[in-house]
């Protein structure tokens, strides 16, 4: 379900000036395809803080370790929550077949209180990701064919030149899955990072906005380090902050199975400095 963070954290190899010029003539589908296919390494590891702001200004922080690895036919993700205590041990595993495969992703969730791993349907991604303003659909990897996109023009976001596109669901299933009737998306012309995204519900109301707040180059890959989503209806806001970001690590395949999330992340599973606790 959460093919997620690729849309947020991964980045494209910085295109040289010539390539950037070539990109001037891209159409909407090509821009989305290049966004989807950015080089984000063959694996990825990060500590992530999910910061929830309620409408009274109270803040809660949830930390997790996030791992991703590319496979021949899919990308696989595992997430292990470490704090606070009510989510400690909660873990997700997601298998995201490449779009060309034409199949849906698979997701499992381990809940330490019940000591069980549960398979979670991926047909409805409207639910909130761990209480945040990011829905599972928001964090999904971009799919080109799920939407029909139109290039509206160009604008600057955070001083960066961006394409502005409008995307509407290509089928009722996509609308049902995401709950969004329209997306407006700002994509950095140089590195194809998503810099901003507006979400519209079935009534055409702009209910949410996702903003990229901070970008850094890690291992020669432009990466979103801080993302923020504001829910205009609920009056709430969530941030996702990436730390200790590393690409192209040798991550063991056993960390990317549905049985791995019950075992949890142990010392030695990943480079030592990246283990936030235990």
């Amino acid at each position, binding site marked *: 379900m959460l093919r997620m963070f690729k849309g947020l954290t991964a980045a494209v190899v910085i295109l040289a000036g010539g390539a950037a010029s070539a990109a001037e003539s891209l159409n909407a589908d090509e821009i989305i395809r290049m966004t989807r296919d950015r080089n984000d390494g063959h694996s990825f590891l990060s500590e992530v803080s999910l910061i*929830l702001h*309620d409408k009274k200004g*109270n803040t*809660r922080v949830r930390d997790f370790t996030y791992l991703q690895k590319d496979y021949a036919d899919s990308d696989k993700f595992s997430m292990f929550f470490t704090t*606070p*205590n*009510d989510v*400690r041990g909660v873990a997700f595993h997601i298998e995201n077949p490449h779009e060309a495969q034409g199949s*849906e992703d*698979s997701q*499992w969730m381990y809940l330490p*209180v*019940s*000591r*069980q791993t*549960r*398979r*979670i*349907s*991926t*047909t*409805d991604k*409207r*639910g*909130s990701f*761990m*209480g*945040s303003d990011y829905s599972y659909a928001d964090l999904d990897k971009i799919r080109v064919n799920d939407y029909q996109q139109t290039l509206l023009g160009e604008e600057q976001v955070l001083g960066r030149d961006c394409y502005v596109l409008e995307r509407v669901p290509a089928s009722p299933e996509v609308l049902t899955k995401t*709950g969004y009737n329209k997306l407006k998306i700002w994509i950095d012309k140089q590195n194809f990072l998503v810099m901003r995204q507006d979400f519209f519900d079935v009534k055409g109301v702009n209910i949410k906005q996702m903003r990229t707040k901070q970008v850094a180059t890690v291992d020669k890959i432009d990466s979103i380090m801080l993302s923020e989503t504001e829910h205009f209806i609920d009056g*709430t806001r969530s941030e996702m902050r990436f730390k200790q970001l590393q690409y192209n690590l040798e991550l063991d395949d*056993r960390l990317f*199975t*549905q*049985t*791995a999330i*019950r*075992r949890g992340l*142990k*010392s*030695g599973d990943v480079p030592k400095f990246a283990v936030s*606790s*235990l």
Partner: protein
Amino acid sequence: MSNRFLKPGLCAGLALLTVDAAHADLTPAYWDAEVGVASAVRLHGDDRVTQKALYFKANLEDSWDSGYYKARGRVRYDARYEGNQPYSDEARDDYRTSADWRHLYWGHYLGDGELTVGWQQVVWGRADELRVLDQVNPLDYREGVTALLEDSRIALPMVRFTRPLGEWELEGLLITDFEENRAPAPGSEFDSVLFGKPDPSYFVIDSTPDYAGDDGFSYGLSANGRMGEVDVSVVALNARQQDPVYAVEGLADDGRLRLERQHPRYTMGGAGLAVDAGYSIVVRSELAYFDDWRVTNPTRSQGADKTRMVKALLGVDYLLRDWMLSLQWQEQQVLDWQAGMLQDRRDHLFTVSAEGTHFQDQLKSRLVMAFTPPLRDDVLLQGIFTYKPVDWLKLGLEVDLFFGKSDRSFGAYDQRDQLRLSAGYLF
């Protein structure tokens, strides 16, 4: 529970890990705790307050290069059992103070595998609050039949080895000591006919086999993995029955029947699967076969019959935004059923539940209807709400409503509907 630590079953395993643990700084790398108050109120009759408890829970964890330990325990003092209290002395002794480890074990990495030794809970299968494959740990029924399994499972001393094999995980476990399901004390709030013992007017229980040491061990194997798009579990267990069976030993001097309270050994094999069927639906199923299962039968000269038994479960989960709606059907069938057995030939149980989170996960709700057909005979309606407005405060509310006949699981608690409240400080 303290005497359980003295049992020798785990000594060898623990000794193996002593060297391991010696390398560790025993100050935990992670800990959390909760202190709070809990109260329960019966919605009918006199003396409605049934619990006035103070509780403390703690969780400690640490790890080192070759292993780790995990400890989670809880202690409760219930002032309701002080002074002039309406329950039996046995209930007072049982409920006034209680403490247990939810788990306490050491882990050691062996290649790709992991050896864990200590008091552990092992949950097999994919059922939601029902037990088909989940037969490893006994249950504590002292808070009745509505407590969540996560709160009522009793940790058992065991040596357990797990290792991944491709997409699969293999598990072997040896439980060193036997422990039975823990029934409510006679004369306590949650005592019911379900936990009835043989009528002392007719029977005398004059012996109970000692299941310490070699007689109490259990062992099991499991494999969890995938076959295509289907999650598959296969399990096998050889253990003693967690509820007692009564065997006739003869006649007592006063003419009553002499019974022995036994926990016969049985073998269980089973499998479970789960598959994402699309349309927001996940289908779960489990099937378990029990061999050499014993059922008390007062009409038999030996007092019990041996039979084969099958338990099955079909569950459907429907995900709707932040709600998980589940429907489960559990069926149990005694294959060699005999007249007089104190267990029905067939037993059905249906559950309908909705579990959701709201307000940035500050509020968690669980609504359940559990019933055995016909609907009017045996119904539980349950609502559990947990509100956590800030990280350090947790408020709980639970409502249990019972309907049905007095000889049924939930109907037995008719007129004992209850409201439970709790407030915990987390640090």
